[in-house]
């Protein structure tokens, strides 16, 4: 796997809605900028060999890194695959929509739910939003949130940005009634 760059972004929110938080809210993202394994090969019918070659390695690289960056247990998580202009969104989906990729994060975070995802194709420097949901119960409304990311020189047309996101809590100042109150 050819990794060009690894990017870490950590946000620490101290106040929201004009009120200080009891403790700062943290969200971390770690992204690997990699060469699209299927770049320059035309339409590749069977993506499985490429998935087998790269998906697990990517999960193993990113999962511990994003938890290190968060410096706290993860309560919500999500993932992203942003494909450069010469690739197919299917290439990004291939790398992240497999247990070979996601199980690294689920195990490291003691998580159980499906990882919500953004898959998108765009130019270098494209802005993308990673959705996050609770790691053990995707219906926990307080933890539905998203995180905006931009890497100034990625993805190049022949690259894919693969990223994991983790939050140490729900939304800052979350105060919606839980789903169960409406059922």
């Amino acid at each position, binding site marked *: 796997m*050819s*990794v*060009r*760059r*690894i*990017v*870490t*972004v*950590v*946000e*620490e*929110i*101290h*106040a*929201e809605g004009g009120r*200080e938080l009891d403790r*700062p809210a943290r969200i971390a993202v770690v992204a690997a900028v990699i060469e699209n394994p299927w770049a320059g090969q035309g339409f590749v019918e069977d993506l499985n060999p490429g998935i087998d070659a790269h998906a697990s390695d990517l999960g193993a690289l990113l999962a511990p890194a994003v938890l290190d960056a968060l410096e706290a247990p993860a309560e919500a998580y999500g993932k992203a695959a942003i494909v450069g202009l010469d690739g197919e969104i299917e290439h990004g989906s291939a790398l992240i929509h497999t247990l070979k990729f996601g199980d690294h994060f689920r195990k490291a975070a003691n998580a159980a739910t499906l990882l919500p995802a953004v898959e998108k194709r765009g130019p270098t420097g494209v*802005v993308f939003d990673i959705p996050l949901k609770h790691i053990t119960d995707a219906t926990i409304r307080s933890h539905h949130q998203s995180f*905006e990311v*931009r*890497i*100034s020189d990625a993805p190049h047309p022949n690259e894919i940005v693969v990223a994991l996101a983790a939050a140490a809590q729900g939304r800052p100042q979350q105060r919606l009634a839980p789903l169960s109150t409406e059922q």
Partner: protein
Amino acid sequence: MEHTDESIGLRKLVLYRDVVLTEAGEAPARPAWRASVAAVIRNPWVASGPSTDLSLEQARIAPVLAKLLTDRLIASLGGADEIESFGKAAIVGTAGEIEHAGALIHTPYFGNLVREFLQGESIICFADTRAEAGESLIIPLWHKTHAATRSHYQTISARVSDGPRADELVVIAAASTGPRPHPRIGDRMTDPVVTTETLEVVPS
């Protein structure tokens, strides 16, 4: 002691860090970690007019920011000893003056302390602008003790997705642990003498 967040009107901190593992297909001899840390704070001078004396708030807020930002930079890059180049920046929201950005980054209350905390000697290079939330700013970095070290001329881009609001300021400190990925444009020691007389073709 007054709580830091309230005293400087801190809304959020954004850390960006990257490392280049391959560039133009080859691994750098010395992969450099680069980082920027941005603080989004309330602009203390909004709607105050150009005759306002900036010195009191500048002396109160800038040292707090210098400590906060350099602590995060040092932690994210493995220690002040690891840091080789540095830079600084500010983005002022649209209800402020560019002078407000300068007040927080261009005086000894910020610059001298950042230099001291990062164990540098050079003047710190900078960028500043007035912009809407989400604007990317390219921050120049140069060597912290020998500013003319050409291998260390580099930039890092910083951006806060929802800041600055019109009445906010973003203040940024940035650093790198090494040079550009494949530095090979010589240095002042290796440069030939270049003047209009030594060139065969002189631009006109």
